[in-house]
């Protein structure tokens, strides 16, 4: 199989996983399972980003959303909400309203996509599809560190260092605020 066929197969696999998991996020009532399905959906969307050729955005999606936000969300829910948030039931009236709103939005988007005035085929966009792709992470990293092909171009080394020092200060402040408070009065000897 050629590259185009593999691209199509991988796209449809990722798309089915992303859309199916997103629907399961809506249908699941258990909040931890919702977060787990959202994790699967966001991972599949990161795979779609890799397929487009945006490797940096795909890696950022995996690191920030999947690795950071969702794990924090799952840990927060599991550590704090034990009773009322574990299982949530949605009333039938809300399901009806949401179905109407969702169906209307979906019909609007499908009508837009099937508009004969817009040519969505790749041929009409082939000139624009020659944009550079792949290995964007390396060029972004080099630009952050000030290594540019053009020596006269401005680098991002100073903002990068300012951001890193800022994050370090925030980390120290968070550790200071979150530390356990010591008792002011010493324990009485028995």
């Amino acid at each position, binding site marked *: 199989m050629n*590259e*185009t066929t593999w*691209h*199509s197969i991988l*796209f*449809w696999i990722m*798309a089915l996983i*992303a*859309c199916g998991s*997103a*629907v399961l*996020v*809506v249908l699941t009532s258990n*909040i931890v399972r*919702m*977060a787990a399905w*959202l994790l699967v*959906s*966001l991972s599949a*969307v990161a795979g*779609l*980003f890799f397929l*487009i*050729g*945006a490797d940096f*955005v795909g890696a950022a*999606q995996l690191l920030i959303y999947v690795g950071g*936000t969702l794990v924090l*969300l799952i840990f927060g*829910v599991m550590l704090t*909400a034990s009773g009322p*948030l574990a299982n*949530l039931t*949605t009333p039938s009236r*809300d*399901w009806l*309203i*949401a*179905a109407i*709103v*969702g169906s209307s*939005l*979906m019909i*609007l*988007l499908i*009508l*837009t*996509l099937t*508009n004969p*005035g*817009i040519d*969505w*085929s*790749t041929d009409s*966009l082939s000139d*624009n*599809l*020659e*944009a550079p*792709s792949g290995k964007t992470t390396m060029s972004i990293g080099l630009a952050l560190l000030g290594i540019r092909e053009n020596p006269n171009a401005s680098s991002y080394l100073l903002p990068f260092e300012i951001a890193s020092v800022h994050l370090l200060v925030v980390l120290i402040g968070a550790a200071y605020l979150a530390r356990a408070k010591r008792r002011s009065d010493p324990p009485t000897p028995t």
Partner: protein
Amino acid sequence: MTPIGLSPYLIVGAVLFVAGVVCMATKRNAVGILMGVELVLTRQTSILLLSTVLGNWGWMVKCLPCLSSSWLRQRLR
């Protein structure tokens, strides 16, 4: 770069967007609404990324008249 065309990506984005909106409408707690917002934002990220990959915003500008009421009225007849 995208041999299968643009519309499959937009269909996936549409499904994610609708799922996020329905999630925001049905869940009755802040965490559920936050998950719906994350789905919608993920869709927006994918659309912006597609625009960047295509190199211009022309196809998005072409979409805007389709959302007008006159076009919808004509389409729904």
